[in-house]
């Protein structure tokens, strides 16, 4: 299958490890991690850093009551965890690195309660050849974008951070060719105009922590309608 060439930047991966990425961006990273061992390893490093930094904090001792409470709960949990110990005879369930197949990542399947992109209620946008599904995730905006094969998007830049994971198909812009599994990690300084590959629709998961900023009068005009 395709080789992943574009990854999230270190600041994005380490913030994910720190738990400080807004939900919409964290979701994109989470889906990328399902297929990318390189980035999993980076996130592990970020978690190691988190552990070390946590250890470096000035200790704030728990109350004596809390300590006694925990000690007491050890006894209560002893038999239960012994059972657990036995039942986990095989290694704990881990999610293996998934191959890049153009299928929907399992994190998304859970949210959308659907496994097939074609079964989703795609909504037209005012931009020609662009359909979308808005994913309500509480922090920032996440959406699935479906760009018709061969379609060119309007030139735009981004006011905040944007992460885009290609799920199926591909596109190219000034930054290069992006295929399934690749992530475009962009901030406000990048202006781009993605062109979807000819052979199939390009489906992406885009997470943003602030609304997009389209350039040009047409883009400014359509921005409120596209809502991106």
């Amino acid at each position, binding site marked *: 299958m395709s080789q992943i060439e574009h990854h999230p930047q270190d600041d994005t991966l380490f913030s994910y490890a720190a738990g400080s990425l807004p939900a919409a961006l964290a979701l994109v990273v989470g889906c990328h991690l399902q297929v990318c061992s390189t980035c999993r390893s980076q996130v592990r490093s970020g978690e190691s850093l988190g552990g070390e930094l946590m*250890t470096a904090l000035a200790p704030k001792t728990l109350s004596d009551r809390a300590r006694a409470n925990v000690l007491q709960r050890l006894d209560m949990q002893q038999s239960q*965890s012994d059972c657990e110990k036995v039942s986990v005879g095989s290694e704990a369930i881990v999610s293996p*690195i998934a191959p890049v197949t153009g299928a929907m990542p399992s994190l998304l399947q*859970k949210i959308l309660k659907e496994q097939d992109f074609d079964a989703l209620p795609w909504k037209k946008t005012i931009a020609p050849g662009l359909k979308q599904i808005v994913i309500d995730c509480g922090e920032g905006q996440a959406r699935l974008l479906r760009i018709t094969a061969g379609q060119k998007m309007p030139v735009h830049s981004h006011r905040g951070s944007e992460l885009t994971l290609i799920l199926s198909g591909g596109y190219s812009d000034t930054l290069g060719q992006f295929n399934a599994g690749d992530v475009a990690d962009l901030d406000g300084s990048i202006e781009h105009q993605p062109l979807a590959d000819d052979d199939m629709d390009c489906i992406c998961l885009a997470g943003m922590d602030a609304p997009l900023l389209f350039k040009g009068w047409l883009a400014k005009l359509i921005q409120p309608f596209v809502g991106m």
Partner: protein
Amino acid sequence: MAEIATEQERSGEFWADCMARIAESRDKDSFMLLFDHFSPRVNAYLLGQGAAASIAEDLAQEAMLALWNKAHLYHRDKAAVSTWLFRVARNLWIDKLRKQRGIAYESDDNLEETVDADVRLNADGERLKAVLDTLPVNQAQVVYKSYYEGKSHSEIAEETGMPLGSVKSSLRLAIKAFRQYFGENGV
């Protein structure tokens, strides 16, 4: 004996030994050593993330009990105890206070490593703090706000007046400095 090691001498190996004894023989003394060392730090971490004192105390207890209950899933060659505990604490904090972010993380049952990490950290907090102290102020600030306050890049930009791009590049430079340190001191 490991038991008479001073607080200063207790290394990653020492804590991994404690985990092994909990897994093998449900050793309460080992657990309480871990508890007394780590729970005040988990508590401090959670308070820094904005948890109310009572919630931080509850979650810190829960995190420590997770060590007790899941000690058999811990592999010393895959992660430091502090890393493992950080992940537990972060996930608990997200579950409790930033539920919306929960969609992006694997569940607690996947605590076990799925890949070998590049870095085996065995550094102690004090030395790491020294690295933090050598960073330029803006880099240290960005690390501090990301890890200890759970702030997003744009929140940091807003609070500090730094442009978003500078927040991100400062964090990247800090990571680079930490990597260098890990590279030299990692096992």
